[in-house]
């Protein structure tokens, strides 16, 4: 399988603390890969390094786009998004005072170009681009089943809907890799099930690969193609859900060691 996102030996130190050390990971075309691990294992730091919020202390992040390979280290978050990587946040970060539609429209920002001058003159091209943005945003809302709420204010949406809106907004940036940071956090089993189907659906529809951080083991086991397990900043296991389920190291990390007493 051709890799789309490739991370080689990524490390991130905060002073003497090795938050992430020597993580290597690939996400292939059309794959759903999960990154799991106990709290504080460094998963979110890893995400932040990949998406440019932190600069990695060592290692490489590579994005393969067809024949072209781009090195993402040191690039700003908005440049990385423009190159085709989109993310959601662990604690939802929508634009709370804006409408649902506007939230998704903003995601199109890096794919459109009207500037200040275009805004003031409102030429035919600007208006066309704007209507196109609205249409696409509305389409995306339809695919996460939020199109009926397009005019409501984002902060007034129920929790699960806010999560879906965040995914729609990420999709609007036209990504080839979608990074989901604990998308099922705070959801009930039914909503989790729904989310799982949604992610599978959009992967197919928009031809994406997905990297997700998740705590819900049921969800991870049933939807991922491959799983990486992190503990104390390093990767302790990698494999298919079946392999991970029986990996003694993982069991130890999650459940602790059997004591002899």
């Amino acid at each position, binding site marked *: 399988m051709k890799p789309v996102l490739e991370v080689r030996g990524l490390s991130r130190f905060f002073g003497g603390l090795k938050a992430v050390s020597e993580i290597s990971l690939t996400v292939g075309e059309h794959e759903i890969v999960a990154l799991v691990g106990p709290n504080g294992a460094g998963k979110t730091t890893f995400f932040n390094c990949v998406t440019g919020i932190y600069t990695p202390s060592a290692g490489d992040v590579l994005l393969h786009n067809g024949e072209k390979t781009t090195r993402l280290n040191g690039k700003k978050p908005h440049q990385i998004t*423009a190159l085709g990587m989109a993310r959601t946040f662990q604690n939802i970060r929508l634009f709370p005072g804006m409408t649902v539609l*506007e939230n998704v429209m903003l995601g199109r920002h890096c794919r459109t170009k009207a500037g200040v001058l275009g805004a*003031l003159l409102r030429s035919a091209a600007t208006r066309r681009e704007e209507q196109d943005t609205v249409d696409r945003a509305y389409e995306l809302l339809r695919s996460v089943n939020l199109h009926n709420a397009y005019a409501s204010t984002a902060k007034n949406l129920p929790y699960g809907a806010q999560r879906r809106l965040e995914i729609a907004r990420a999709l*609007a940036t036209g990504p080839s890799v979608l990074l989901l940071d604990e998308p099922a956090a705070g959801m009930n089993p039914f909503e989790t099930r729904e989310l799982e189907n949604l992610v599978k659906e959009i992967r197919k529809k928009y031809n994406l690969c997905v990297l997700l951080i998740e705590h819900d083991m049921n969800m991870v086991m049933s939807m991922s193609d491959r799983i990486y397990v992190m503990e104390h900043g390093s990767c302790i296991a990698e494999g298919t859900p079946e392999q991970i389920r029986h990996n003694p190291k993982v069991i130890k990390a999650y459940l602790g060691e059997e004591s002899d007493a």
Partner: protein
Amino acid sequence: MFKQRLLKAALASVWFMVLTFPLMGIQLNRVENVIHWRFDRIAMLGAGIFVLAMLWHWCFERRALGLPLIKLPDKVVNTAYSLPSRPLFRRGLPAVILMGMLLMPMVSSIYQTNIMISALLYVMLALGLNIVVGLAGQLVLGYAAFYAVGAYTYGMLYEYFGLTFWVCLPLGGLAAVIAGFLLGLPVLGLRGDYLAIVTLGFGEIVRLLLLSQADLTGGPAGISNIPRPGFFGMEMSLDQVTTYIYYLVLGAVLLTIVVISRLKNSRVGLALQALREDEIACEAMGVNTTRVKLSAFVLCSCWAGFAGVIFAAKTTYINPASFTFMESAMILSMVVLGGMGSITGVVIAAMVLILAPEYLRAFSEYRMLLFGAIMVLMMIFRPQGIVSSERRRYRIPSERQSATENKELSA
């Protein structure tokens, strides 16, 4: 509930009486060396505070219960809420106001017209600042500096090169843009309080430079005898030229409103609002925040530059005292009181803040006191400002489809 309120109010009034006793209650008679104890005044003060505190706590209780402060009949409330959406009101009211503004200089005195000119100038300034503070949520405290750059550009270009108003208007804007760009480039990486402090410093630097470079700028004496704007070389009386400036400023304000509303509803405007809502998410969604901020900053300083040139032409005399921090604070409070990002609200707030002191001269001693009280009350009871920012309506695909279907049906 009532008992608690009574207790709190009594406590407040006692506390106030104790605090103000040395100031209000003791009067020294230096001639006879006796002390007059003014217990009557203290008692009056205590009673006053008691009533106010009762009212204050009552307001809070109503608010905690989610009740409106004054219960109006349903009919009145419903009419008030539906008014803005009625087409007659939406089109009619602005038309009436515009007609009134157009006719004003013909019926009012020069004095009144002059007051209106300065109010309109402030509307222009406040709308300009609204781009950065209201839309993008970046706190800028030294806005008067850009205003000064515009005004001094005209003043100095006239003094040294004899350039006229119409040549200087774009040049003043350009000078302010350059100043905005030079300041913006290094500091826009800062957030919140830090940006506020740096811009505050910039405002002071510009003012002090204008003061200290006396041989260039005239120092504290400023520049005088700046010509009023000309109209194809026509000779005009003071009366006529005031009317002329009035229409000029009115035109500028209308242009500002068009520009700001277009900007607000554009791709850049959307990015600015997203920046205000959540900067990290905004950048993660592919917005080059530095660039967007910089363009807002530049446009906002450009507007201050224009306003500065017009100001210099209107007063014919400028000095650094017109561009103090008070000025920046005044413009900022217009934006905050009006409602961050709302054009209607900012226009109303600017008009009220400039016109009210002019027509309430009787209360001029209490001006700052009233101003402070209004600010505090607004922040507690209506932090979103007079008018909360209105959201634009978009035409979604299905609506467009039905619109074309309707057209086909009728055809």
